[in-house]
């Protein structure tokens, strides 16, 4: 039995603002296993980034407030660590790549200064050894003429190259976990393909686990082993990638799958869009957060938040967790083609 490397249990995060309390993450639990890639999918405001920033202790408090839950890593609860204790983990054992390579690097420092900081701090390298290490890393992530380019500033690099620098920085201590928050969203498709290949190759080489946050189902299909779908700050579905695409059971997941146009198939006349708007995180409905947009909704859905139902044991083939009381109906509908679906 493989032990999870990271366990997130009942995590709740809220932000106190002048207008009210934003309940960004509500009761999120998941396990991450060594060497796997877990995708976290959701729309803007679904809490996917906040959940992961919390794991790294990067939520500004206030206005943020971790209301409950635990994040277990290396037999300790990360939420209980002081900032000083966190320094020994963040960047060394858990590293992160951010969405925007344009703003995540300091424009006033050379690539070298930013890269050597990590290994000098965490690995105790001397400056010369750290530079040597940094050049090796840049070569590893495919930056040509790394030894000479390392003294350049971020603005002299293109977007794809900057993202490679970010990846090199994240990998410099060979972390156990890499959290990638929309690392390819700002990049063009051909560069995105290069970066996804690079991440996959680095994972094969270093054996790290990756949490891959994205809203692009195409990216999920190509890189993730398992997927967690978030809506309104909650986990609504979690299963392995194949099952998710073949037999989604939550109406939101199904809606997402059908609303994404595909370039490799003949076009349908209309896309199956999900009607309505994402929920207001300040006034989440009492019941299922997706109910107002759901074509299967009944009075029961509005009464209480649906419990997560689990089929199969976690991490075994075909294990499936979902939060919908009409899941059986939906699975039948999901097996039909999108055109035949009843339209809300």
């Amino acid at each position, binding site marked *: 039995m493989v032990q999870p490397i990271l366990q997130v249990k009942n995590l709740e995060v809220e932000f106190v603002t002048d207008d009210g309390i934003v309940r960004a993450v509500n009761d999120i639990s998941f396990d991450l296993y060594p060497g796997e890639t877990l995708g976290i999918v959701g*729309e803007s405001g679904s809490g996917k980034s906040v959940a992961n920033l919390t794991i790294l202790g990067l939520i500004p408090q206030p206005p943020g407030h971790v209301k409950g839950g635990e994040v277990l890593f290396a037999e300790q609860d990360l939420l209980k660590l002081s900032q000083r204790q966190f320094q020994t983990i963040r960047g060394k054992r858990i590293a992160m790549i951010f969405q925007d390579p344009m703003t995540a690097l300091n424009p006033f420092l050379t690539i070298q200064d930013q890269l050597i900081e990590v290994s000098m701090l965490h690995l105790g390298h001397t400056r010369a050894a750290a530079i040597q290490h940094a050049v090796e890393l840049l070569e590893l992530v495919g930056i040509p003429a790394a030894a000479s380019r390392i003294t350049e500033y971020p603005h002299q690099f293109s*977007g794809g190259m900057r993202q490679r620098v970010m990846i090199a920085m994240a990998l410099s201590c060979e972390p156990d976990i890499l959290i990638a928050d929309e690392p390819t969203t700002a990049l063009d498709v051909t560069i995105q393909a290069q970066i996804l290949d690079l991440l996959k190759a680095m994972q094969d080489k270093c054996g790290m686990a990756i949490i891959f946050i994205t809203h692009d189902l195409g990216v999920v299909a190509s890189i993730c082993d398992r997927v967690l779908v978030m809506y309104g700050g909650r986990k609504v579905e979690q299963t392995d990638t194949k099952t998710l695409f073949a037999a989604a059971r939550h109406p939101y997941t199904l809606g997402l799958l059908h609303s994404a146009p595909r370039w490799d198939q003949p076009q349908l006349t209309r896309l199956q869009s999900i009607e309505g708007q994402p929920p207001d995180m300040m006034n989440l409905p009492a019941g299922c957060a997706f109910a107002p947009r759901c074509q299967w909704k009944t009075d029961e859905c509005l009464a209480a938040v649906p419990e997560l139902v689990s089929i199969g044991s976690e991490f075994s083939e075909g294990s499936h967790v979902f939060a919908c009381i009409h899941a059986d109906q939906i699975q039948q509908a999901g097996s039909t083609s999108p055109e035949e679906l009843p339209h809300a």
Partner: protein
Amino acid sequence: MPNSENTILSVNNLKVHFPSKRKFGQPQRWIRAVDGIDFDVQEGETLGLVGESGCGKSTTARAILNLIHRAKVEGTIHLNGTRIDNLSDRAMIPHRLTAQMVFQDPFASLNPRMMVGNIIREPMGNYKLFGDETGRRLEVIRLLELVGINPQYMNRYPHEFSGGQRQRIGIARALAVQPKLIVCDEAVSALDVSIQAQVINLLMDLQQKLGVSYVFIAHDLAVVRHIAHRVGVMYLGKIVELADSKELYDSPQHPYTIALLSAAPVPDPTVDVRANRITLTGEVPSPDIEYVGCSFAARCPQVLGHCASTMPQLSTTDHQVSCLLYEDDNIDKSDPPTSNSAKVVV
């Protein structure tokens, strides 16, 4: 010149060169953002333009509406039969009734200090359309209903709406003068997938109801396939391939189009994209170089010996492609690819 009376927009050999910052003692360099493109848009048709950042799609969008300033613009643009590329801003005003634009960022493109009703009413007032204020007010209500916003919200401000709703308001504003052509520059890129689908459906419904034409610019290949009748692929300021949408996606010809499609992720884990992916080495080069030959030659997996020295021309067949592989029958196709062929990832 416009080919027929149904042609709304006709662009001929359009070039837009921006001056780059001049360094002391050095000659002026030019960023060749758009470097000789031709296309037509017919009534009720959607032309998609795809390409990576920096390929000149947005410059093309702005050039179509004569919104480029401080740049060298060559070539001709005919809008509804009238040449507009040489018109001043003032002379352009009546032609803005024909063509309107929907912008990428629904947060930056609406005036935060105006109520949405007024945002949509302003262009009508400018052109004295729909009689008097009452007529315009009724038209605003009609447009809001058309794009799926409750007309009761006309006295609200943009910040009270979500991104998708704001993009609907931007579309209503573009429709306010009843244009024949709407240029959508990455109009759905900033939206979440489920909302994006709503806006795409809306744009397609409006085309059916009103017969409006679109120039639809996006980097998302799937979105463009869905909405466009014909698609042009741009690379470094040029159209390298232009064909009927189905034809282009089903049998792409230009090596760049083939690479672009093979890199696009497919939302289906059973399709092994990696198996036949062509990974292009390198990145899009700087557009300040004037090429003698094909600008894609340095990255092309199927490059021929004479590609770097011979400029390919966009063919005039139905499936237009600008590549020497398809250009000349008397060229020896067995000409071996040179060493910089891209690797195929297994």
